[in-house]
């Protein structure tokens, strides 16, 4: 019997754990909690505004290090002048950085992937610690480069906006390169983007394996945000989109394993040049002990529920409209909107007004935040009308109890419900109503789908099995020898 040193996993998370309560953060917390035999070193990449926030989770004891990397403005520690005696090396490093910048401008126009590899090779030896912020960002060379490319390709844009676009792209990259990363036996990044870049740097610095789990596809989320933003000029949006596209694509080639939640995600990753052979699908999971043993209550009235925060992304309005269509055909059905109503008060008021307008005061109930364990047994049909989802836990929980589900075709919902539930188009209240009525009025169909849902949830979405998968992966990669 020998002493087995505990293995460590460097978990790299961007803009989430442990400051935000949400899907990804809860997933991280639960995974770490359920792997007490592994030490975790959290590397959290956070925006400056989180400095005022409180940590939302009680950190498990097996988190042995918690490093914060603040993206955003540079404090005094970065703008202070540093002096190095090795002037030749200093010049080499500065010149290399400017090569990266020149290449970046080239790739804006010519889509050259090499650029960010050069950037990575510049950043990973932490050479950036040799040079000052002022060697680059307040230097004449950097300004001239920006000016040169502005005049070539962006001369119709207000100069200051292009100037700051380039600064806002390169400053965080430079900043990331200056941070020391704690050593771990393997690294696990929970997204591409900046977290992915830190993962790549860690891999190159310490020659340890890198894993990636993607919940949503980072580049798609950034693209949607950029499109929706009114703070970025339309003619500068392509700069950001191309930047994020390449930043995200950079992570995949360095990953030893890419884990995603569902098949559609893996197709997006392959499109972003991830090797198909590297991808493994490990879905989300739920605590079957908590939900699998609940029994549905028997009653005469059919209860239809949506478990969601009352916010636009959950499209509660479509649910309310669907309830009107259902009510017109069958009065013995009640509808419950189960979730907090205080996140977007304006939207909540809009939903309430619609309930009044459609005369559904006796049919539709807003429950607010409730204990789901008590509420699930009251629900006969679970509905999800979201306009965007990844892999919703509420559907899995409903399936585990045996509640048949109707969902809009977003994220992994079609994979979740294929053959065991109903899928409709997004924003389709009539189709949603049709599916609800079919389940409500056909007891055999309801029983059949209830049984199948329960089996699927038990077989595929048992959180304990998911944890075992990660245990296997961590054991394999943390023990890897060069």
């Amino acid at each position, binding site marked *: 019997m020998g002493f087995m040193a505990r293995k460590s996993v460097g978990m790299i998370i961007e803009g989430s754990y442990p400051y935000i309560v949400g899907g990804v953060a809860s997933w991280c917390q639960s995974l770490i909690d359920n792997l007490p035999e592994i030490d975790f070193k959290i590397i959290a990449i956070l925006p400056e505004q989180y400095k005022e926030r409180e940590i939302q989770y009680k950190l498990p004891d097996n988190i042995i290090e918690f490093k914060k990397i603040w993206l955003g403005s540079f404090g005094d520690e970065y*703008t202070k002048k540093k002096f190095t005696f090795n002037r030749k090396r200093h010049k080499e490093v500065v010149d290399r950085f400017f090569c990266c910048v020149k290449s970046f401008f080239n790739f804006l126009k010519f889509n050259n992937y090499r650029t960010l590899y050069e950037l990575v090779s510049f950043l990973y030896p932490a050479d950036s610690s040799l040079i000052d912020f002022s060697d680059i*960002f*307040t230097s*004449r060379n950097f*300004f001239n480069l920006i*000016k040169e490319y*502005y*005049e070539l390709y962006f*001369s*119709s*844009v*207000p*100069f*200051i906006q292009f*100037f700051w676009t380039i*600064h806002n792209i390169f400053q965080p990259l430079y900043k990331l390169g200056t941070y020391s990363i704690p050593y771990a036996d393997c690294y696990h990044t929970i997204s591409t983007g900046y977290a992915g870049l830190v993962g790549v740097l860690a891999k190159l610095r310490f020659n340890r394996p890198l894993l990636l789990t993607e919940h949503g596809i980072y580049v798609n989320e950034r693209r949607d945000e950029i499109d929706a933003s009114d703070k970025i000029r339309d003619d500068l949006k392509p700069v950001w989109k191309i930047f994020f596209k390449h930043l995200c694509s950079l992570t995949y080639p360095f990953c030893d394993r890419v884990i995603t939640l569902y098949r559609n995600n893996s197709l997006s990753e392959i499109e972003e040049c991830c090797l198909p052979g590297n991808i493994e699908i490990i879905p989300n999971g739920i605590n079957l002990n908590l939900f699998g043993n609940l029994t549905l209550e028997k009653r005469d009235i059919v209860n239809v529920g949506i478990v969601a925060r009352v916010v636009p992304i959950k499209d509660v309005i479509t649910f309310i409209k669907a309830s009107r269509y259902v009510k017109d055909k069958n009065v013995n059905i009640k509808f419950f909107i189960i979730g907090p109503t205080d996140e977007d008060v304006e939207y909540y008021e809009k939903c309430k007004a619609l309930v009044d307008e459609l005369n559904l005061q006796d049919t539709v109930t807003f429950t607010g935040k409730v204990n789901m364990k008590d509420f699930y047994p009251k629900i006969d049909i679970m509905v999800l009308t979201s306009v965007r989802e990844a892999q919703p836990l509420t559907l899995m929980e409903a399936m585990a109890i045996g509640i048949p589900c109707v969902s809009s075709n977003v994220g992994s919902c079609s994979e979740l419900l294929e053959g065991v539930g109903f899928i409709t188009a997004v924003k389709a209240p009539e189709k949603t109503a049709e599916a609800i009525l079919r389940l409500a009025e056909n007891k055999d169909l309801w029983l059949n789908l209830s049984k199948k849902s329960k089996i699927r949830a038990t077989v595929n979405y048992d959180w304990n099995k998911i944890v075992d998968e990660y245990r296997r992966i961590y054991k394999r990669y943390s023990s890897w020898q060069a």
Partner: protein
Amino acid sequence: MAGIGFALQKLLESKSLAKKFYAFLLATFISSGPWLFSMISLIFINIFSSIFIKVETMIPFRVTIIYVYAISIITSGPVQYLLTKYLADQHYIKKWSNFYPALFTAFIIQGVVSLIFIPLWLYLLSGADIIFKIVTILLYIVITYIWLMMDFLSASKRYLAIVYSFLIGSFLSVSLTILFMVIGKSSSIIISGFFLGQLFILFMLFFFAGRQFPFRMYINKEFLGYFKIYPMYLFIGGAYNLGLWSDKIIMWIVKGERIVFNYRIFDPYDFMIFIAYLSMIPALAFFLLKSETSFFVRYHTFYKSINKERLYVIEENFRRMRFDMYKAIFILSLIQFFSLIIFLVIVNSFDFFKFCSQYSVPLILASSFQVLFLFVLIYMMYFNLIIEATISSFMFFFLNVFLNLFQFIYPIITIGYGYFIATFFSFLFSLVILIYKIKDLIFNVFREQVVE
């Protein structure tokens, strides 16, 4: 453009030569009015004093006024420059509520600074009676506050308020001084009259300030922060004003005589300086005209375009602004040249100036380059070339001290030429620096945004 700028611009744009001349006259009043009114009041006081009292009785008063103006400008220079910078920034972002509190804070700081110099006054006034000492010290403090009030009203473009205050206040100063002269016939009484007049000027300046800004008396922490963020302005203010007076102080000590108490003066030099400084008036008026009209417009157009225009527009605005500035410096130099010639001719033509005319050439030349140097310094501060302005100010100070001392050790150069060489080289040096540095203005503006 605010306030007087509009009025001046309208007059200048008119086709009438008379209106253009009127604009120039107005600018003269505004740029040199306070100083001119003060000088004229002293001249009147001196003339009337010869009727009512003995010459010796006026000496303590006359010399004290010189020393009060010298020491007040040297000791209030640093706070003045920093206050002007702060108020200019607040004016740009239109935060008027910060004006009065900044003034209040400046008053407190300047009050403390002035107290530090009381021992110097006690030394200089050794032998004077207690009333004379008290009134002189109070007069010194009031004059330093008047400088600050002038900065305050200038920053808010209330130039005419300054002119009115000095016009009425100077009249009152003269009247009270003569009245006290008649009643008292002692220097303590005479200086008290003058002091009351200056106090009235201060109150009038306050009155005009109070009409524009809400009266708020609390410490402005943001202005206090400027002492830490922009200490260079303090150095510029200190070095420039010390440099301006160092040749006079050296003359007083080395060539001058102890005239009363511990005062030393060197009359021919002092009088010639006064005449030489009169020759700066046309250039000062023209500079005010330019800075309040076309340069002001181009300057603000350039800085506004930084935040919203395409690069070629920014560059075009920069070129126009730079051209306007070079043109102004050229015209100022021409104006000063003609003024220099006229004054040289006048001073060397009349017997009245015989006792001091040997210093006319170097001192009138020196004052010409002095005013041009001042303009270049102001442009440097407009463009945030603060380190360069500081170096130039210190260079001026050290050159003026060194050359004026040197001429007494190795008399290669005669009196007055030390001052002239100092101002000449300071002007040349700062102009070269300005021309060289302004090429990079656009880069520096963006660089400062990144650093902030």
